[in-house]
């Protein structure tokens, strides 16, 4: 159904691995959704089903010691950088084994040991942080790059402007990857932005090169990211990548997303990133059974994750008073 170009230089086995990662994310998001409906996930969730190719494609082009900063819609980035579905779901389910000890929740998944330096819930706040990590890499001469993933809506907040400007002026090794899913919460980005590509069309204001890409094609994302990483590592500074994609669920929680026209939803559902990857695999001659087996493995990983997270213990109430300070505690007075 989906037409893909066969010209990108990605091998069959590598693509199969990326496909499997995407499948794991998709199933984790589905599980999160079901657990929310079942009342086992509290608070809120912002699911990234539909956005898998952005996270997996970009991560494929990064080194393990590179830095990634995500938004409250960040499950896919955590998993793409190596967080397990189990520790993520345990977090969502308020379990002691959660990736942030149940202190962060869905909006703050973080795996610092894998360079996944946090999910931030104030729109735009993490763009300067990614620039800061890139500045640090530059100061230390480490050759690392930093990536900030953010939504289309974040392009209209002040921090976006300040981050892009300083990144350009100091020629920082940072990638600004916009996941343009056409909507903020319930309002279309087009209704509050005077240019068609909210991230890419702003990049010239900072003399930063930009690309608008198909964010649903993992190979396209990986290739664009690789180009930007190459620029960054060779001292040529930041890049803006605007990846067009679409969410399969509503904005958060149980939002039915009725504000989206049915034809638009239909059109994007037909451009499911997993389908596109499968079509690519076929083009590369990978037998369909291999993809099915990858899917099955993903299903099993997530099923086991759900079971383990369900079985995990609740946090110790005393944990509420740890981790404020680096000494482990929270004492603020004598």
């Amino acid at each position: 159904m989906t037409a893909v170009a066969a010209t990108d230089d990605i091998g069959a086995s590598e693509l199969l691995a990326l496909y499997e990662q995407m499948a794991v994310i998709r199933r984790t998001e589905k599980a999160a959704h079901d657990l929310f409906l079942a009342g086992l996930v509290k608070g809120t969730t912002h699911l990234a089903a539909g956005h898998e190719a952005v996270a997996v494609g970009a991560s494929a082009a990064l080194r393990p010691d590179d830095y990634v900063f995500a938004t409250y819609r960040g499950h896919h980035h955590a998993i793409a950088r190596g967080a397990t579905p189990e520790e993520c779901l345990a977090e969502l389910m308020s379990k002691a084994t959660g990736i942030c000890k149940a202190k962060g929740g869905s909006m703050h998944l973080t795996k610092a040991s894998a360079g996944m330096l946090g999910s931030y819930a104030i729109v735009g706040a993490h763009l300067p942080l990614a620039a800061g990590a890139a500045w640090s890499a530059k100061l230390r001469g480490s050759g690392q790059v930093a990536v900030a993933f953010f939504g289309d809506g974040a392009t209209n907040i002040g921090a976006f402007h300040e981050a892009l400007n300083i990144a350009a002026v100091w020629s920082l090794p940072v990638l600004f990857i916009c996941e343009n899913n056409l909507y903020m919460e319930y309002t279309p980005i087009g209704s509050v932005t005077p240019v068609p590509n909210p991230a890419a069309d702003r990049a010239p204001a900072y003399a930063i090169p930009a690309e608008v890409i198909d964010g649903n094609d993992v190979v396209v994302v990986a290739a664009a990211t690789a180009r930007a990483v190459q620029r960054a590592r060779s001292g040529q500074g930041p890049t803006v990548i605007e990846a067009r994609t679409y969410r399969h669920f509503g904005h958060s929680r149980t939002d039915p997303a009725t504000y989206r026209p049915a034809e638009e939803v239909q059109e994007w559902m037909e451009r499911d990133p997993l389908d596109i990857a499968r079509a690519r695999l076929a083009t590369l001659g990978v037998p369909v059974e291999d993809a099915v087996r990858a899917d099955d493995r993903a299903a099993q990983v997530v099923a086991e994750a759900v079971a383990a997270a369900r079985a995990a213990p609740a946090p110790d109430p005393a944990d509420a008073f740890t981790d404020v300070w680096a000494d482990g505690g929270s004492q603020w007075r004598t």
Partner: protein
Amino acid sequence: MADISALGQTVTYREAVAEGIARELRRDPAVVCLGEDIGKAGGVFKTTQGLFEEFGPGRIWDTPISEQAILGLAMGAAMTGMRPIAEIMFSDFFAVCWDYLANEMPKIRYMTGGQITVPVVVRTANGGGLGFGAQHSQAVENWTLAIPGLKIVAPSNPADVVGLMASAVRSEDPVVFFEHKGLFASKGPAAPADHVVPLGQAAIARAGTDLTIVALAVTVPMALAAADRLAADGVSAEVIDLRCLVPLDMATVLESVGRTSRLLIVEENPYQGGWGGTVASIVADEGFELLDAPVRRIAADCVPLPFADALEQQVIPTVEKVAAAIRRLMAY
């Protein structure tokens, strides 16, 4: 909008917000609303539901995610003849537009020697207890208390929402209007027609003789529940609903402490820098001779707010904590 002003009807706090705004929009053509997703979507907390349908896009404006622009637009429009009601979706986001609340709106009248008037209302969803984590759960009424020049409103029930909204919108001074997330689903009597609650008048939510509990917004029902629980033990607690932090009705508090000689303050913001410190310090000064016991404060612990319910309940005030504090204070 459905008419929910009929006497005796019970409405939710959430509905009261929309009703309170709608009444002012109907009354005064200079009133206009702006904020993120407040229009067609009716607001993420459904507190502006029906406004777009009734008043249309000329009165109800959906904005980009640009909190500085939201408050800057509101202030600039207020300076030039309009009476904007701006929504900042979560009060935590005051941090990205704090300049307008701290340095612009509250100071322009003073620093121009009275030349400029800023009749603006900044509405926001405040407070925790819903498992929204550290960046979407804060009670930040104390941030605004630190800023002379802001009026600060935080209603605890639907009728007060409507009555205080009327006063806020009609105020010539900037007003921050805290709507509590934990109260949106709560119910109470609907406000009568033309209901106006003046700013700066505390309410005695429960009369009592043994100790005074000062509360605000979500801690009012909490204090009432604790007081009811302790009534069984023969304790008669008076509960004062401050309703506003500025103007701050210390006369009512001091009068009550004069009768009870014991004071417990229940606030949701963290203990360090919390508004209860200001109230406590006034009582420890002006009411020193009235007191027969230490002034006590139940506030959030001094940590960011954790996600898990079980952890969050450890940190924020609860009926249990208030009840225990009453017991300890009565045992003093």
